């Protein structure tokens, strides 16, 4: 009986530790070849141009491949996915702009839009402690397939 209780306690402790664990962060200069550009999926998220402009409705990034792992932040546009895709429990591993490793639901991201015939993705590199991307020819980091504009009532004249 004692062993059973100890086992349960240990499992609970490990779960708590896992939930509170800090996200892994790549050090500036670390290799980035294992990542590729994807984008949040506005259609799946049912985002409108107005919501996108105001930053509403963006998907949560978690510390692990579970909603219970804790929130790391949100993804607003381009996401750097581990490539080939690393999927667990419906979540995909990503790298954030500051080098944190996180997880996002695989149902709210998609490949970049591309011009017909192109194989464009992106190339990642470090600029200080920021992971920057350079789009390959033909790739578009657009939120909507046909691009989008600043909402009419937000334009200054």
């Amino acid at each position, binding site marked *: 009986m004692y062993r059973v209780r100890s086992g349960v306690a240990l499992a609970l402790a490990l779960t708590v530790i896992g939930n509170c664990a800090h996200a892994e962060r790549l050090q500036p200069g670390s290799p980035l070849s294992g990542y590729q550009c994807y984008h949040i999926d506005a259609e799946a998220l049912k985002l409108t141009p107005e919501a996108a402009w105001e930053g509403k409705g963006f998907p949560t990034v978690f510390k692990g491949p579970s909603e219970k792992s804790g929130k790391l932040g*949100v993804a*607003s546009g381009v996401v750097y996915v581990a490539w080939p895709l690393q999927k667990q429990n419906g979540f995909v591993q990503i790298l954030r702009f500051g080098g944190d490793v996180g997880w996002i639901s695989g149902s709210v991201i998609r490949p970049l839009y591309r011009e017909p015939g192109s194989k464009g993705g992106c190339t990642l590199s470090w600029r200080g402690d920021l992971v*920057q991307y350079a789009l390959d020819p033909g790739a578009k980091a657009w939120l909507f397939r046909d691009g989008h504009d600043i909402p009419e009532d*937000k334009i200054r004249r």
Partner: protein
Amino acid sequence: MSARSRKRVCLQKGASPGGRQWLWLVAGASGALAAQAANADPQVVLPIGLPVQVRPTYSEPGLPAFSFPTGGGSLLGGSPGSIDTSGGGGDGSTSAGGGSSAGSGDAYNTMMAQSWGSAAANAAGAMGVSATALAATCVMESNCQNVGASGGGTASGAFQMINTTYTADINGALAYDPTISGSIVSGLSGQMDPTTEAYAASYELRTDALALQSDGIIDPTVLQTRAVYQFGGSVGPDVAAASDSDNIAEITGLSAASLAANGLTTSSTVGQWRQTIINKLGSATANQTVLQ
């Protein structure tokens, strides 16, 4: 150019709200010494910088708010850098509550040269953002001139906020620090009160910077935050994280007309856009951290 408000899950950083009334006093001994020196020698003695400032822990009841600009400007010949006392200047500016916020650079000096500059710096401090970052916004938007709306739009004031954004942001600022309620002009009239609009603009900067933090950018700069301010919540962070060589239209998806409203063309690169900001603000200000 455009501005908007943003509401999202944020990683908190920066000064906590609260009534932070700093009272600045100046030791007057230096003036007396200068007078003595003048009696002994008729030559004009030019002061170098401001005299030593005393920052008391407790304010003295009954005294008005009193603040000094912390940088730039000669004190001679009526040039920028004049002392701002509560009650505002001739432009109807109100005095500011909140804590002062340190700053530097040409943009900061431009803002502090206005009669409402010190009050605006205090507004920045109250919202937990750098006064330099706030100054960068007014320089970019109006060269810190309190101008009215034109061309059929609603963008007005020193920070050129449109009505909807201003309303959302001033309400956000009040929610963040309710103690500022006595320092602001209510309603849309507040847009034309530089101190009041400074609270709204500071809150906007705060939310934009927090959005970048939430997207993984650890310590957002003026330049990075400007991308969110200018291009919106979804593509702003993408512009901030793009390389200089990227075509800005292929990142944002904005039409030629919208790009033109931002002073860009379909062939403009992220690097060119960044350079326009740096050219106007200077590299040091553009790379200044927004959150305090």
